[in-house]
């Protein structure tokens, strides 16, 4: 493994992340507007299929951008898709059964603010972030293809989007389909948030592999991602609470998307700054 690889920065990753956020927001706007204008009528099965299709869109957008721009030094397509699939598999086989079945979070998580935050961090946050970490750590991490510190962000984002896709498909299937307008917003929020939290884990993974970090480095990464996950979950629930007015009630679902986009953009910005700082420090010490 050459040192020059570790201090190389795959610059288009940041473009991909930002494009994912922007295009997701535009896509949501288009679907929402079309739903309002056309008011399509669905049969139960077409509603279900449409929901599943929409659940795949965020990952599809990110993967398209990634492959279009990853030409100079391409990551093996199979590896990125494999980690994406592994993230989804872990969500379906372990994550969802654990949070929904074993911990039954929907029965107690929203009892009060403290419980929403604590339960969101300790149970939902740690389960999701550990599984996304595991999808990278026990697959590509030890491979020679994981040869740049930014690869941590790439593969963790792929795992995060895989996890988000399965969460969204599970939501669609368990509800027998979703309302097109609010459904696409929910899916975009889940995808952007999961990708953002994975980015944090990915940054820590990248540095853990190529720099001499202390033993608490990686646990700190997972814990930070879990805290972001739990706090985001609470914030989203708070700002999207239905508002009762004299003319009726409204649910500001759009605010959830705004929050997710801001969190994703901020996280990407902070990770970009941290990665560049780390590369500069490595170059200075070369």
């Amino acid at each position: 493994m050459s040192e020059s690889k570790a201090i190389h920065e795959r610059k288009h990753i940041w473009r991909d992340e930002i494009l994912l956020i922007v295009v997701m927001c535009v896509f949501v706007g288009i679907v929402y507007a079309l739903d309002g204008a056309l008011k399509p009528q669905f049969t139960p099965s077409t509603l279900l299929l449409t929901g599943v299709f929409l659940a795949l869109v965020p990952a599809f957008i990110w993967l398209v951008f990634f492959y279009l721009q990853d030409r100079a030094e391409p990551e093996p397509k199979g590896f990125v898709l494999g980690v994406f699939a592994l993230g989804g598999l872990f969500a379906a086989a372990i994550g969802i059964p654990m949070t929904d079945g074993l911990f039954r979070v929907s029965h107690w998580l929203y009892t009060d603010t403290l419980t929403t935050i604590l339960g969101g961090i300790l149970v939902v946050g740690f389960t999701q972030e550990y599984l996304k970490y595991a999808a990278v750590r026990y697959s590509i991490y030890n491979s020679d293809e994981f040869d740049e510190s930014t690869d941590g962000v790439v593969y963790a984002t792929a795992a995060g989007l895989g996890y988000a896709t399965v969460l969204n498909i599970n939501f669609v299937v368990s509800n027998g389909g979703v309302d097109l307008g609010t459904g696409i917003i929910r899916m975009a929020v889940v995808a952007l948030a999961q990708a953002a939290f994975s980015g944090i884990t990915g940054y820590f993974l990248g540095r853990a592999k190529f720099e001499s970090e202390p033993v608490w480095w990686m646990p700190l990464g997972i814990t930070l991602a879990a805290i972001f996950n739990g706090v985001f979950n609470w914030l989203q629930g708070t700002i999207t609470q239905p508002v009762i007015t004299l003319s009726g009630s409204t649910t500001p679902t759009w605010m959830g998307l705004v929050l997710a986009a801001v969190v994703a953009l901020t996280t990407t910005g902070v990770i970009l700054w941290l990665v560049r700082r780390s590369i500069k420090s490595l170059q200075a010490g070369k």
Partner: protein
Amino acid sequence: MNKQGSLGDRFAEITVILVTVIALTAGWFYKSGLENASVPFEAEGISAQAPKGWLNYEPSGEELFRTVDRYSSGFSTTYVIRQIAVTSEATTSEVASAVALGHAQDMLGFSMLDQQEVRDVNGRNAYMITYAYVESNPDVTHAAIPSVVRGADFIYVSGERAIVVSYQADEENYDLDLGRFYRFLQSLDFS
């Protein structure tokens, strides 16, 4: 620069697992603490520790207490305590038959699953009936598919009154929520 497979890497990996296990264990204890939290209920000489955070309804007719878990999926898990006036000669099986008949009239698709004399979690003699029915929402525009509800009634006769303690839950949650109901039943005191 790449330190894969190093001792430090192994330690870091184990530490991640440890931290995750500790967090999940703490989450489990927090969840259990919430589920075991209770609030006292007392009326007509009957007392119990009801689950905290559930929706309690005002007493109505024979019904002294009704509490509903608003967060349970499908049909909301419900505990009910009723007091029925009976003659001093009435047996628990006679009261149980009357209760079952009442359910058959009120509940859509009512089906008796089992009935037997039992000793409850406190060793008291009781008559238990278990049943199932379909949640019937009278709102014809209600879009949701009806839920299959499973229920269990514990019937006690004490002097000239019968106390009926009911547990009703969505079929999917029935077994999972049963342990908590037994704790509620254990706290029941009508002596």
